[in-house]
């Protein structure tokens, strides 16, 4: 029979946090938001780097096909854009990059290598990037609806549902 030991450790984190003084939730969040605002410009630059990397991967496609390594690189870069877009509230870019994650992951799982669905998502992301002029709500809706059709065509479910 395997041995089970139950510990009730004293955690230094809990001891430190219980000391007098400290900060309220409201003040902590205010200070954190201010700190984040100070580096938001770098966020746009990071999105730009990830988009350029995605465009480079699409440009390297051989005969309209990507290798599994390239698709994994697409996933990694798109994931970075999801994080940045979500952090700074770029809603359309967030949705387009999530859709690219779904498509790239779906292609990998299905053993397909088509570059076209990846390329169309990357173009949409470029359209929604913070350094481009923001499209109207109507145009944004139309582009996102077209991206949804691509996922529907391949029958790829969102990543979170797997």
């Amino acid at each position: 029979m395997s041995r089970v030991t139950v510990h009730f450790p004293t955690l230094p984190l809990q001891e430190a946090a219980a000391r007098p003084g400290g900060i309220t939730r409201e003040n902590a969040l205010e200070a954190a938001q201010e700190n984040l605002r100070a580096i938001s410009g770098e966020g746009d630059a990071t999105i730009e780097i990830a988009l350029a990397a995605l465009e480079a991967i699409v440009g390297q496609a051989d005969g309209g096909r990507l290798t599994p390594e390239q698709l994994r690189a697409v996933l990694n870069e798109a994931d970075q854009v999801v994080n940045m877009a979500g952090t700074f509230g770029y809603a359309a870019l967030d949705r387009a990059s999530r859709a690219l994650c779904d498509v790239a992951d779906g292609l990998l799982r299905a053993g397909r290598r088509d570059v076209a669905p990846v390329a169309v998502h990357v173009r949409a992301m470029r359209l929604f990037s913070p350094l481009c002029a923001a499209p109207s709500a109507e145009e944004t809706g139309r582009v996102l609806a077209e991206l949804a059709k691509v996922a529907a065509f391949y029958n790829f479910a969102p990543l979170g549902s797997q």
Partner: protein
Amino acid sequence: MAQPRLNLQAVSVLLVDRNHYSRALISQALRGFGIKHIAPCDSGAGAQEYLAQAPVDLCLVEAELPDMSSADLIRAIRRLPTAPLRFVPTMVMSGYTQFRTLNAARDAGANLVLKKPVSPQALFDRIHWLCRTKRAYIETANYVGPDRRFHDTDPPDSAYKRGTDKTENVDPQQPPAESASS
């Protein structure tokens, strides 16, 4: 009523994330909370190297590191011989593509999972929860980490119950009516 306060000035945090900007964002939020000692690492090996030299009070680990998964790193931490460090509260941050790795992180002994993009609100609330909640740690042959069972207690009998939930004058010592009649 005065808001509860959290004193994080003396807390040291190990932050492991492959992306330097992601590390910068989380560090900025942590500094806003008053945390002064933040050790950033970009790989699991780097994190293990740091932990061998300096203890930390909290670990924030990205789900998928370039050289290992967060589960591997957490498992290594939970098997350390030194007592305070092996029970260090560990939070796994998962990006959009890493959902599938979350069960592995939990089973390796992670305390909490936080989905990216990480908002300061979510981060603060999780840290607050870790600071205020006492949790037993379980050690077995194949698992060392926080007790994964949470008590799910019913509301008290006198309040918040639906009419259909009511059981009148039931004596807990007596068997249910059906079995009593048989």
